[in-house]
């Protein structure tokens, strides 16, 4: 858009901070706004829920097993008669937390390694890429078995049974998904590093760190955000696949992934048991991805909307 003209009659815009500009462009993306709203509702429901819906998560009542949604059990009951809504609320906190935390871990490590590899010209770059290849070929499961076996007791003492496992799962899922992000960031850095405006910054005496933070990283953010949002979905599903294989959280922690896993055999008897957690995962993932889309468009200055 053209700059200001003294006499130009269009409204006086005033200086606006980049973040208000980002929000203005972000709000252009209708679906992203709706998704942000949806995600907030989900988070709110999961955090505030237990204070409203007082039912305990493991009240076993065999007679009331496998009942569809009813007034007393809005989401129905599972085969042991436990209330699915209460379990969804309790498990939701963990699933969302695992999803987001694992994504942050993988994006943070990935960006760090990618930036270092991208900026370095010599051995460090090769070394980091070797490390990426190594992690890419590490099989997730035995590593998980090993890590659980090595760290579970230590973490349990410090953070309590559930906290310990939570950190372990987040580190493992996050710690094994950063490689694609690292490779993406490195590719971006290799191309942006050559661009004129970075050379200009260098010419102005900007230190490598400043170049990265101020100039290169904001331009490399687009694909990283996309990879990040895909990672949230992958993390929530990875947690459920861990339950599929029986690893991960202790059996009585009803994360969405475990609910789905327990319900998969009863799909034809009580579809409600699988559909609610499946639906919750779907909504969370779709919301996060649309937000990712919106963010990428908002932050990518070149894209005229």
């Amino acid at each position, binding site marked *: 858009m053209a700059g200001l003209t003294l006499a130009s009659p269009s409204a006086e815009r005033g200086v606006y901070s980049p973040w208000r500009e980002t929000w203005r462009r972000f709000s252009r993306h209708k679906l992203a706004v709706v998704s942000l709203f949806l995600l907030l509702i989900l988070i709110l429901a999961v955090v505030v829920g237990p204070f409203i819906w007082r039912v305990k998560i493991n009240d076993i009542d065999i007679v009331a097993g496998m009942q569809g949604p009813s007034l007393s059990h809005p989401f129905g009951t599972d085969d042991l008669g436990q209330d699915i809504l209460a379990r969804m609320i309790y498990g939701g906190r963990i699933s969302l937390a695992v999803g987001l935390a694992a994504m942050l871990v993988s994006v943070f490590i990935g960006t760090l390694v990618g930036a270092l590899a991208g900026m370095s010209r010599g051995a460090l770059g090769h070394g980091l890429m070797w490390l990426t290849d190594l992690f*890419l*070929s*590490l099989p997730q499961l035995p590593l998980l078995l090993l890590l659980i076996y090595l760290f579970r007791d230590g973490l349990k003492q410090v953070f309590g049974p559930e906290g310990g496992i939570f950190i372990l799962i987040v580190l493992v899922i996050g710690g094994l998904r950063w490689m694609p992000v690292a*490779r993406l960031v490195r590719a971006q850095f290799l191309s942006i590093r050559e661009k004129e405006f970075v050379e200009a910054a260098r010419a102005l005496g900007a230190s490598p760190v400043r170049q990265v933070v101020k100039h290169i990283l904001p331009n490399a953010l687009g694909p990283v955000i996309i990879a990040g949002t*895909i990672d949230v979905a992958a993390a929530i599903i990875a947690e459920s696949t861990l339950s599929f294989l029986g690893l991960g959280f202790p059996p009585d922690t009803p994360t969405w992934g475990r609910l*789905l896993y327990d319900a998969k055999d009863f799909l034809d008897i009580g579809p409600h048991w699988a559909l609610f957690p499946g639906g919750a*995962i779907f909504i*969370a993932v*779709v919301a996060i*991805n649309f937000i990712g889309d919106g963010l990428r468009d908002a932050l990518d200055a070149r894209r005229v909307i």
Partner: protein
Amino acid sequence: MSQYVLRRLMIAIPSLLGISLVLFVVLALAPGDPFSELATNPNVPPEVQAALRARFGLDDPIYLRYLHWLNAMLHGDWGFSFVSRMDVDTLILQRLPATLYVIGSAQILALLIAIPVGVYAATKPYSLFDQVANTLAFVGFSLPTFFTGILFILIFSVTLDWLPFVYTTDIKATGIHYVLEMIRQAIMPVAVLGLFQAASMTRFVRSAMLDVIRLDYVTTARAKGLGQAKVIVKHVMRNAMIPVVTLIALQMPAVFGGAIVTEQIFRIPGIGSLLISSILSNDTPVVMAVTFVFACLVVLFNLIADVLYGWLDPRISLR
């Protein structure tokens, strides 16, 4: 170019050695025992389990077992599986066809869906088609494969009874009937896996296309009156596909790794189910062989991806 490839291969050898060492240590340290089923069987005295562990060298120090494995590997002897006492390479070769057939065709299906949908969605950004394609892509990768797998079985096998859901490698028929039966039994696993992979691929193709479509040389091409289709295919895709091709090359090893969950649900005797059963029964030689081959493929396809990038984009000279 070949000089570059040679140099990269030379680097690959030490890196693979390093990776194999780390892999071996991880597997050796992981808890568990291939003879666990003997434990609760009163008929078998505990000494037998201990004798078996000793005979297969499970109690030796780790570095010794690694050196032993390495020099056996160099002689082409991949060791034998503790569980089935069968040579590991025959075991893997036995399962390779099923994996390549099912997982390979799923990957191809994913590409056949992702590229046209991604390209078309990019040519009409924010149109109805674009929104629908985007939402379906989200649906695709937000539902875990074990959920969609079982849903498919319930619909197509149980209620409609169109498709068998147990994958068998020995089909009595021959000729065309054999091919038909092979296709019929692979439809569901390929669909489940293919749609999941197509979903994330579509988003990637679409964003790669969007980056290219608004560049100047695309306007030049249109100014030459070449027609929308030719402009898109010859000029836009030719550039946009470079990052996509590299991504495909990087995903190739996953084809070998198989899909643990899909193979479990549809009983496909692929590398994935072999890997998971070996891991859960701590059959180290098999797990080591599979993961090492996987590591070699990762390094190899990294090289292929870089070479492809250099070959497709003339600006990059492979020094």
